[in-house]
C-alpha cells in the first residue's frame, strides 16, 4: 500500500487502529485539545487518542441535550460519543482549555462515562505562578492515571516519551519546511490528512508514517512556478480537509498555519529537563491557543508584537501573501482575539480574511465567494 493510501485510510477511518490496539489488550485514553501531555499517558503504557468531531455528520443526538448555540466542534464530538462512536475509550481527559470544553467534561462524563475520567485545570495566564500551579495539576493527573493504570510512573519512561514526541515534532517541522518552496512541494490538504491521521495512532507509528511521507514528497519533481497566492491559516479546529481543499481549489496554496490541529500542538519541543515535569509545563502552558493570555507587555504595539510576533515570523518565512482566519462559530476566544490579530497583520501588510463557520462541510459553497474575492484582492 502506498504511503498516501495508508494515510488516507488512517484519516478517513479514525479510531480503527485504536480499536485494534484495545482488542489486543491496550487501554485507550481519549483527550481534547492540545493541553494534555500525551507523554504522561504514553509513559504509563496507555494509548493517547485525540478526540475529533465529524464535519460530515449532522449534529442530532447532542442537540437533544445541549443548546445549539454552543461550539459546534464540541457538540459534534459529544454527538459522536452519544452515538457510541467513542465506545472504545477507556479514559476521557479534558483540559480546561476553554469554558466549552470544561463544561463538556461534566456533560460528557454524566452521559457517557468512561472507566477513567479526569479534568486538568490549565491556568489561563502564562506566567511563573501558573507554571507552578500547572506542574501540581500535572502531578495530580499523573497520580490519578497511575491508579487507573495500576502502575507507577517511571520518570525514565517519561523522559523516553518526551524524546519520542520530540522526534515526531522534529519530523513534522521537517515536513512543514517542504511547504516553504515556491510553489510548495506538498499541499495543505495533504498536510491536514497527515496530521489528523496521527491523532488516532501511537506516536511511534505516526513517526513511521510521517518519515515515509516525507521521503515520498522529496522524490516528487519540483512543481512548476504557478504564481498562485500563498495562504497562512489561523483559527482553531480544522480536522477535515474540506475547507483547505476549497481554498486550494480556488487557486491558492495553503502553506502555513497556527491551528490547534496544526503547528499549535507540535511546533515547540518539550525541553529535556532534569525533572521531566518542568519541561512538560514549559511546553504545554505556552500553547498558542487564544484561550491563554500572555501577560501584557508595554504599550499596544509592544503588546501586539509580544502576542503575535511568532505569527509574523511564520508568515514571513513561509512567504504568505494573505491570512485567512477560520473560526468555528461561537468560539469566543478566537472571535475576541481575531480583531487584534487582524490589526497586527494588516500593519505588517498581510491582508486578512476572517471567516466564521459552522464546523460542517455543507457550508463550503457559501464560503467560496468570499475566498475567491479575497484571492482576487491579493492577486
Amino acid at each position, binding site marked *: 500500500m502506498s504511503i498516501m493510501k495508508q494515510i488516507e485510510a488512517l484519516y478517513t477511518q479514525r479510531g480503527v487502529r485504536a480499536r485494534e490496539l484495545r482488542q489486543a489488550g491496550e487501554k485507550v485514553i481519549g483527550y481534547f485539545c492540545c493541553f494534555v501531555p500525551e507523554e504522561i499517558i504514553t509513559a504509563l503504557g496507555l494509548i493517547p487518542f485525540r478526540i475529533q468531531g465529524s464535519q460530515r455528520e449532522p449534529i442530532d443526538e447532542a442537540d437533544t441535550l445541549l443548546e445549539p448555540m454552543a461550539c459546534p466542534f464540541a457538540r459534534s464530538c459529544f454527538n459522536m460519543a452519544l452515538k457510541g462512536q467513542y465506545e472504545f475509550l477507556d479514559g476521557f481527559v479534558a483540559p480546561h482549555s476553554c469554558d466549552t470544553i470544561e463544561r463538556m467534561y461534566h456533560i460528557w462524563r454524566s452521559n457517557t462515562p468512561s472507566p477513567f475520567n479526569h479534568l486538568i485545570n490549565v491556568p489561563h495566564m502564562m506566567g511563573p505562578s501558573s507554571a507552578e500551579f500547572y506542574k501540581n495539576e500535572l502531578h495530580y493527573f499523573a497520580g490519578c492515571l497511575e491508579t487507573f493504570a495500576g502502575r507507577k510512573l517511571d520518570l525514565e519512561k517519561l523522559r523516553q516519551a518526551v524524546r519520542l514526541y520530540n522526534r515526531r515534532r522534529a519530523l513534522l517541522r521537517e515536513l512543514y519546511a517542504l511547504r516553504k518552496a515556491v510553489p510548495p512541494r506538498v499541499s495543505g490538504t495533504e498536510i491536514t490528512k497527515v496530521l489528523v491521521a496521527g491523532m488516532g495512532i501511537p506516536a511511534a507509528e505516526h513517526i513511521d508514517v510521517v518519515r515515509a511521507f516525507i521521503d515520498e514528497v522529496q522524490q516528487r519533481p519540483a512543481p512548476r512556478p504557478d504564481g498562485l497566492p500563498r495562504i497562512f491559516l489561523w483559527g482553531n479546529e480544522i480536522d477535515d480537509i474540506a475547507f483547505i481543499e476549497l481554498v486550494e481549489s480556488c487557486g491558492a496554496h495553503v502553506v502555513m498555519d497556527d491551528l490547534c490541529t496544526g503547528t499549535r500542538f507540535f511546533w515547540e519541543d518539550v525541553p529535556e529537563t532534569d525533572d521531566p515535569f518542568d519541561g512538560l509545563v514549559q511546553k504545554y502552558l505556552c500553547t498558542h491557543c487564544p484561550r491563554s493570555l500572555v501577560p501584557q507587555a508595554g504599550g499596544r504595539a509592544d503588546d501586539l508584537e509580544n502576542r503575535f510576533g511568532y505569527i509574523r515570523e511564520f508568515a514571513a518565512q513561509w512567504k504568505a501573501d494573505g491570512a485567512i482566519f477560520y473560526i468555528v462559530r461561537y468560539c469566543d476566544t478566537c472571535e475576541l482575539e481575531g480583531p487584534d490579530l487582524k490589526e497586527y497583520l494588516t500593519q505588517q501588510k498581510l491582508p486578512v480574511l476572517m471567516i466564521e463557520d459552522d464546523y460542517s462541510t455543507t457550508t463550503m459553497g*457559501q464560503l*467560496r*465567494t468570499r475566498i*475567491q*474575492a479575497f484571492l482576487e*484582492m491579493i492577486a
Partner: protein
Amino acid sequence: MNADSRYFAGLDMGSVSVKALILQNDRVAASGLTPAGGNYKAAAAKVMEEVLARAGIASDDLSGMVVTGLGAQSAPWDAPQLSDISCHARGCHALFPSARTIIDIGGQFTKAARITPQGSIADFLMSEKCATGSGRFLQVISRILHIPIEEIGPLSLQAQHPVEFSTNCAVFAESETISRIAEGARPADILAGVHRAMAAKVKMLVKRVKLEADVVLTGGGGEDAGLVQAVGQALGLTILVPENPRLTAAFGAACLAAEHKRT
C-alpha cells in the same frame, strides 16, 4: 470564440435571478434578466440566448466572457469565473469613477467593499447567514403585506411614523410585522421600519470595512428607493445608484472580460 470581433459578455448567476449583458466597444449592446428558479443552467442558457438575439449576434461572435455569482460553477460555458465582489467593484468603478465604497444588496447576501481608485477590491465583508440585511428580508415582508416588491420603495417613502423593529432577525421580524399589522400600523410605516432595520445592518458592515465616499448601492436593493434613502440616512451621505443596479455585476463581468482580452 472569435478573436476579431468586439463583443464581450458578462453572466451573473445570482441566487434570485440570472443576468446577462453584452458589451460592444465599451457600450452595452444588450442585457437581460431571468429568474434563477431551481435550475441555474437552464436559466443561464435562456438569458444568454435572449441577449445574444437582442444584440443580433451568435455566441461564436463573442470575443470573451466572464461568469460570476453564487451559481457560477454550474455555468454551461467554459469561461473564466470571478467573484461577484470583483465584478461589482469593476462595474461600479466604470459607472462612477469616484466610487470608493460599494454596497451590494442581493437576494441572499449583503456585501460591502472598499475599492481602490483603480476599481479593484481593497477590503470587503459579507453578511453572515442572516437574511435581515439582504433582499430576502424584503421578499418576506412583501409577501406578508401583499405588496408587490417593486411597490415597496415608493410606499416606504410615504411613511409618517416609521415602526421601530425590536429585533434584527428576519424570521422574528416576520412575526413582529404581523403583530404590527394587527395593531393597525400602516403598511408604509411598517416598510419604512423594515428599511431602517436593514440600513442599520448595512451600516454595521460598511463601518467595518471603513466607509469612504462616494458610496454606490448596487444589486436588487438599489431598485428600492425606500431602502436607498434609509441607507443614505444611516450613513449620513448621498448614495449613488446605477441605472440598472441588478445588472452591475454582469456589466462588471463583461468589462473584466474585455480587459482580459486587451492585456
